[in-house]
């Protein structure tokens, strides 16, 4: 089980002072937070991608992640999320493969469509084509990382002929990809089709969405023959604020919650903590809540936490990371390991993917021989021949 910190890089005024950090300060603090997360025992740091204020998450995450690769030893560098809809898959192939080399394989990605509608036209794309863009772009990216020379033609970019994306992925093993979506079944289906991972941000929504989407992804993962449903790769988000004493956490976090972007000025913190996975309380309460996630989705591979947001001072964020490291993560690791079947895989690392490829076990997109998907395709073909 991996634990990580993810950031959206929001610049939000601290409600106590009314002052927001400068962009420079927030960007430098993001680096501090990532490094601190590694020291505290987190395995993963993931950054969002943003193109509009009040966010300073990078427009091109590899810029930040490459810097972090040089500043950290073991941290896996990831995204939450990479905008597969508006970015050119050729640039994604190049930038992330380059990052993979710099980081010696400590890289994976989470694909998302983004939740900011206006971004689409800024990059010459049509928001009504969100799903088709995610489908076509990722298919091209997938091929660029796996085929030396690509001939390609699609709807959304110029055709490619005998195109080679450089550099080639490290050891010819592309970074692992998670596909993130809150409630589009197409994206869960996409993740399952390729044998990739599925990420649910699990922050603003009721658990029903998380359960439905993960269940669909797991069923289809098995359908495409990549393994049993319970062996599919699932990552979840979550958010928490804690102090030793629960009441202290409530008192301290409330002004930040009430003014936070996205959910501030909406439901009360009492209601929101009931309706969504947000946990405010003692480390023990955060542990108990997080362990519930497994009841929703089954044994899973990666748990990410949103910690640095809503205008919390960096000092507080670092304290939160320490509390996670000292009080929460050790217990979670122990508890998540209990009753976990041996055939549930860990989150993929570069070394794992390398070995899997060498053993000839890399997933076959759409399902290889022996999968139900393969059988269904054969059946459909036979039927077509018959009717001709």
């Amino acid at each position, binding site marked *: 089980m991996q634990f990580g910190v993810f950031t959206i890089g929001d610049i939000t005024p601290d409600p106590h002072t009314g002052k927001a950090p400068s962009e420079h300060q927030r960007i430098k603090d993001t680096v501090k937070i990532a490094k601190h997360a590694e020291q505290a025992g987190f395995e993963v740091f993931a950054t969002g991608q943003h193109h509009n204020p009040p966010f300073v998450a990078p427009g091109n995450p590899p810029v930040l992640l490459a810097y972090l690769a040089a500043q950290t030893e073991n941290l896996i560098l990831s995204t939450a999320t990479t905008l597969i809809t508006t970015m050119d898959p050729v640039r994604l192939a190049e930038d992330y493969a380059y990052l993979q080399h710099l980081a010696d394989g400590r890289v994976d990605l989470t694909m998302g469509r983004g939740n900011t509608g206006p971004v689409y036209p800024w990059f010459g794309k049509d928001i009504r084509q969100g*799903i*088709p863009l995610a*489908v*076509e772009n990722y*298919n091209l990216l997938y091929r660029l990382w796996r085929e030396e020379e690509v001939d390609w033609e699609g*709807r959304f970019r110029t055709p490619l002929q005998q195109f080679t994306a450089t550099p080639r992925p490290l050891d010819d093993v592309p970074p692992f990809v998670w596909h993130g979506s*809150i409630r589009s*079944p*197409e994206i*869960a*289906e*996409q993740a*399952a*089709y390729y044998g990739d991972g599925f990420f649910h941000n699990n922050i*603003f*929504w*009721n658990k*029903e969405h998380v*359960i*439905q*989407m993960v*269940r*669909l992804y797991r069923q*289809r993962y098995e359908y495409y023959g990549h393994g049993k449903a319970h062996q599919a790769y699932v990552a979840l988000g979550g958010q928490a604020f804690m102090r030793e004493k629960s009441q202290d956490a409530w008192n301290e976090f409330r002004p930040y919650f009430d003014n936070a972007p*996205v*959910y501030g*000025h*909406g*439901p009360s913190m009492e*209601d*929101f903590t*009931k*309706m*969504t996975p947000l946990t405010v309380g003692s480390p023990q309460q955060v542990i108990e809540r997080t362990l519930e996630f497994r009841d929703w989705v089954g044994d899973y591979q990666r748990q990410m936490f949103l910690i640095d947001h809503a205008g919390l001072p960096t000092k507080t964020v670092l304290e939160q990371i320490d509390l996670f490291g000292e009080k929460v993560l050790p217990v979670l690791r122990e508890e998540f390991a209990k009753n976990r079947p041996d055939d549930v895989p860990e989150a993929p690392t570069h070394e794992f993917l390398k070995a899997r490829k060498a053993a000839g076990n890399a997933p076959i997109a*759409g399902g290889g021989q022996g999968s139900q998907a393969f059988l269904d*395709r054969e059946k459909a073909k036979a039927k077509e021949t018959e009717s001709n």
Partner: protein
Amino acid sequence: METAYESTDPFTPDTRHVAVIAAGLSDPSSTSMLAKQLSQATADALAQRGYRPVIHHFELREVATDIADSMVTFSRSEKLSAMINEVEQADTIIAVSPVFKASYSGLFKSFWDLIENDALIGVPVQLGATGGSPRHSLVIDNAMRPLFSYLRMRVMPTGVYAATEDWGSANGGQDTQDAESNEAYLSRRIAHAGDELADVTARLDPRPRRAPSQPKDLEVIPFDQLLNGTDQ
């Protein structure tokens, strides 16, 4: 709130679930009163046809802040989720709003905004509205009908509008030269609406139901079709 008609076995094939949405703001409210009369008329008409009506009566005022919260975040309270769940799987629906500023109330619209676009395709709906004056009676046809057409529901031809004077007037119900009083006319119209809705509901198969604890299964388009653009 369920009526005495509640079936002992909700899975019997002759059970029909009627979801009633009343957007009145006060308690008691004339909107709620009209909704209850419409649901009673529908229940009676269904019972006459050999069906067991189960009425699920919902007052939007009880979830007004939940609806607002749900609009500005993505989260839903348990109470609101349960309500939406019941509406989305109802066999037939009765929707009643007060008239505010030449249309249905904002609360009424906000509730329907939370319903999935394709959740209620083909489901019969009976419309009702209440107002202070009979001059607003076209709100049903000009404002409410398009909303439910958008949801591709079977909107009943008869809409029931009740103005203040229809509930009982100062001069013994004889506001007009007609032989029939306003109250009698309203009752007759409500009974007619109930008959109409029961007729259509009875002709349709009951819709599948799931336990509240059982999340909806998501439908999926096989990825080959998405990839080849053959899904449209």
